[in-house]
């Protein structure tokens, strides 16, 4: 008979099971390729492709004055924010240009613009913005306001000086300093956001798929008749998945985030790994929960979408808590991903320390432990 195992025996057995999970993952070439794809190409695409700034906004200037002053004003609408496109001949053509999307902005400088300026009469410039994309509409408007504001200040200063109104006009120069990402490099945000999201996706999907596969193939039965306890079956699975995901994180950090996007990693890398490992481990409970509900892979896929989509939107990554209605904000408070996002950006981009991150980490651990406990409990109930 078997001697009853001591803790070393149990540990050895666990390690053997982890080894088995890793071997199985390694032999699943489709999955490996998919993981390689998402942790490199996908993050690269997200980081390099997504940009929310005003970039190359097409502007058509209908200059009805054709004077030096009008040309001077129009010339201030410059790349990289703006790109000049040929002007329409008449207002109808202008409307059509906006309708078809060929230009995003049409600026109309009236006849007698220069004459009006010279005579001290206000000159009205029409600025039509396609605001069907609200963010870009707003940006196009505020950039224009800034350009025209500056133009006005220069004009007024010159005229007041000419009128003998003194040395100068008072004005405020408001210099802006963006913390953590001074050059507003969108790849930093998108790259990190995508990485944290992928970690979440795989933390849920990998254990779910592995568990459903054992269910489909009937190998789960073999484990259940063995002396292994449910926790001994699940723990190695989750551990192996955690290792794989951390390997993916390493790849993404080294190759894409550091290598291509030059993201500064301001905090402690070991801290980030520790947080990620804790998060993956605990969040896997949600995956196990799905595996107990689904009968096959297709259902796992659908259920995962249903769970992941809300988690993502309630993560605070896209919309800060303060912009949400109070009930939605309450939902956000129970999404473990929300805290992982805070902690992830906190360490990588903001250089925060363990002590500073204590509140979100505590919440994340608590919610994760709940999820893992629930997954384990349901798994245990279903199979014994």
């Amino acid at each position, binding site marked *: 008979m*078997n001697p009853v195992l001591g803790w070393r025996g149990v540990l*050895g057995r666990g390690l*053997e099971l982890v080894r*088995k999970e890793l071997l199985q993952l390694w032999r699943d070439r489709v999955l490996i390729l998919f993981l390689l794809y998402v942790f490199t190409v996908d993050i690269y695409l997200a980081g390099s492709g997504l940009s929310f700034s005003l970039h190359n906004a097409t502007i058509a200037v209908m200059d009805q004055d054709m004077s030096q002053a009008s040309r001077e004003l129009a010339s201030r609408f410059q790349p990289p924010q703006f790109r000049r496109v040929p002007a329409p001949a008449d207002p109808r053509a202008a409307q059509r240009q906006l309708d078809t999307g060929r230009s995003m902005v049409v600026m109309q400088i009236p006849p007698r613009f220069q004459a009006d300026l010279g005579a001290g009469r206000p000159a009205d410039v029409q600025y039509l913005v396609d605001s069907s994309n609200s963010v870009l509409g707003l940006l196009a408007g505020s950039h224009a306001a800034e350009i025209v504001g500056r133009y006005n200040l220069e004009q007024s200063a010159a005229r007041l000086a000419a009128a003998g109104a003194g040395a100068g006009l008072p004005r405020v120069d408001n210099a802006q300093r963006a913390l953590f990402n001074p050059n507003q490099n969108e790849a930093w945000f998108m790259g990190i956001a995508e990485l944290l999201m992928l970690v979440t996706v795989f933390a849920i999907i990998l254990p779910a798929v592995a568990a459903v596969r054992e269910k489909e*193939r009937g190998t789960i*039965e073999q484990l*259940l008749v063995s002396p292994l306890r449910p926790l001994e079956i699940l723990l190695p699975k989750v551990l192996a998945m955690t290792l794989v995901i951390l390997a993916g994180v390493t790849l993404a950090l080294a190759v894409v985030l550091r290598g291509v996007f030059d993201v500064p990693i301001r905090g402690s890398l070991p801290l980030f790994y520790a947080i990620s490992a804790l998060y993956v481990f605990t969040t896997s409970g949600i995956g196990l929960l799905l595996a107990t509900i689904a009968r096959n892979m297709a259902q796992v896929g659908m259920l995962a979408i249903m769970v992941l989509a809300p988690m993502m939107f309630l993560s605070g990554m896209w919309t800060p808590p303060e912009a949400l209605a109070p009930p939605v904000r309450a939902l956000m408070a129970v999404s473990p991903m929300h805290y992982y996002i805070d902690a992830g950006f906190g360490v990588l981009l903001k250089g925060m320390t363990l002590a500073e991150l204590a509140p979100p980490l505590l919440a994340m651990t608590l919610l994760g432990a709940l999820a893992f406990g629930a997954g384990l409990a349901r798994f245990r109930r279903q199979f*014994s």
Partner: protein
Amino acid sequence: MARAALVTAMDGSPAGAAVVNLRGLVKRYGAATAVDGVDLAVRRGRMHGLIGPDGAGKSSLMKIVAGVLAHDGGTLEVFGQAVTSERSAERVKQRIGLMPQGLGQNLYAELSVEENIDFFARLRGVDEQALAARKRQLLAMTRLERFRERPMKNLSGGMKQKLGLVCTLIHEPELIILDEPTTGVDPVSRRDFWAILDGLVDERGLTALVSTAYMDEAARFATATMMLGGRVLAEGTPAGLLAALPATVVSVRCGEQVEAQRRLGAHFRDTMLRGAWLRTVVDAAPEEPASERARRAEARVREALAGLAVEALDTAAPDLEDLFIARAAPAGAPAPLPASAPAARRAWPPGYHAIEAHGLVRQFGDFRAVDQVSFTVKPGEIFGLLGANGAGKTTVIKMLNGIQPPTAGSGSVAGADMLRAPGQIKRRIGYMSQAFSLYLDLSVRENLRLFAAIYGVPRARRAARVHELLRLCDIQGIEDMLAGDLPMGRRQRLALACALVHEPEVVFLDEPTSGVDPVGRRRFWDILFHLARAEGVALLITTHYMSEAEQCDHISLMYAGRVVADASPEQLKAELGARRGALWAFDTSAPQAAVEALRDAGFADASLYGTSVHLLDPDGATLAARVAVALAPLGIAAGPPQRRPLSMEDVFVERVLELEREAAR
């Protein structure tokens, strides 16, 4: 006959002409060759069988004939149409019905019986009037009428298979192609299915191409083609095939079974254990006259066993499984199993039982899955648990394994109490499931290593144990192959090795041999025999193969959650013989009509096997006369009845039908 004339008129070719004609057919999947140069002709109005294990190439061949799979070489003609392309295949599809492999796999689970039939009919453009008439007729014939509205997913295995047949027939094809229609179905439903099919072939002049993995079903075909590894091993009528094997089967009962088996194994090609008996196939010498074979075979066996006490000895003709093994087994005897010193046997206290079940009950809501089940299994005993799907076998095993607690009752396994120490049970038993439960993406060695770790085999012992098992289970030399790449026979032996890794004293085997060819099954049973007899391991096994049931020492037959018979196979057969008489077989000129006439005349068990009729009757002396009387009005002549040995299938079917009749009353 009118029917024959009709058939001729429809096709312009006479009955018996080839409906399907294959020449040198080849099918490859990547580097693997599934069908390797097969010639085959299927004659009109015949039931043509394809017999062979999984992977023999049967399914590919049938799909190619049905025009749903493209082939890579050779020629194929169906109804005289050369099938070379998707377009040419379309031309014959209206005349063909295909039922692919997998019980109910081609049916729609969410649809009702009637909706399934309607879909198949409308897909084939059957007009509504004809559909209504055919549906009524086919549902009546298959006794599914009552279940019209029931969703397919709620049908039993046997009913799914009959529904599959109805759906295949609804457009009245001339050729039906049925891929393993009886796999995974209990013996009673199987007999029922064959009776329906026989009737259809006979009445409608249908041509059927049917495959099976059960060797004993081959006797039901007019023509049988045995396949292995994509090639044809043998072809002919069942009788003709057997005539090609000049051998005698000698069964002996002998006190020193282990030694007897060793000696017989050394002298003869094919020896297997059947409970207390050893069954040996003795090949005749080339010049030996047929009349002398049995006597000489007996003499040779007695000579081999010289010095051992032979308690009983019987001779019989070989069956189709023997033929298959003779044709398929690689030359030379397999490596002998490692001899265990008697010292390796454990000492058991007198009266000790490896498994004890007392009044086990398991209730699921209103449904009682297991009802007062009791039995005992001694160390070294091979115990068979038989029963149809849903009879409660799996639930009994789960309770004994400690996975499911019983609602009532008690028991012990390997000396540990079922209720109090399920954890101990788990450490002391081995379990091998139907699906073989291996990690297909791990290698042979990795699988063994994993299970050794799971069962806590000490690290120091692990390598030696793995080596022992590789040898015992005859899977040496393939240690680094992935389990998924192994042929079924080896995969099965690997699964057994995994179940044995911690030297359990009790091993549970849940339908361990499904999908394995007869050669592999024999090898497997050799190992089981070694475990039981040489190492004193108690084995509990469930199986659908009635030929395997014969190999058990002791059998419990379950029906609707209860044990309805508990004895050795010999006793069960003797009991059936005493109650219902012996099994008789005879040839007739019109077998199907003869079966019907005999049933009407009171021979309730009359059934058709290929061209001969089987029935049970207690009075052999007057049987021929009574049969002649029953068949005379139809002008059918019958040959002399020949006595056949009763099989476990006869026992099973008789018992279950009896119980069903009781339940109906």
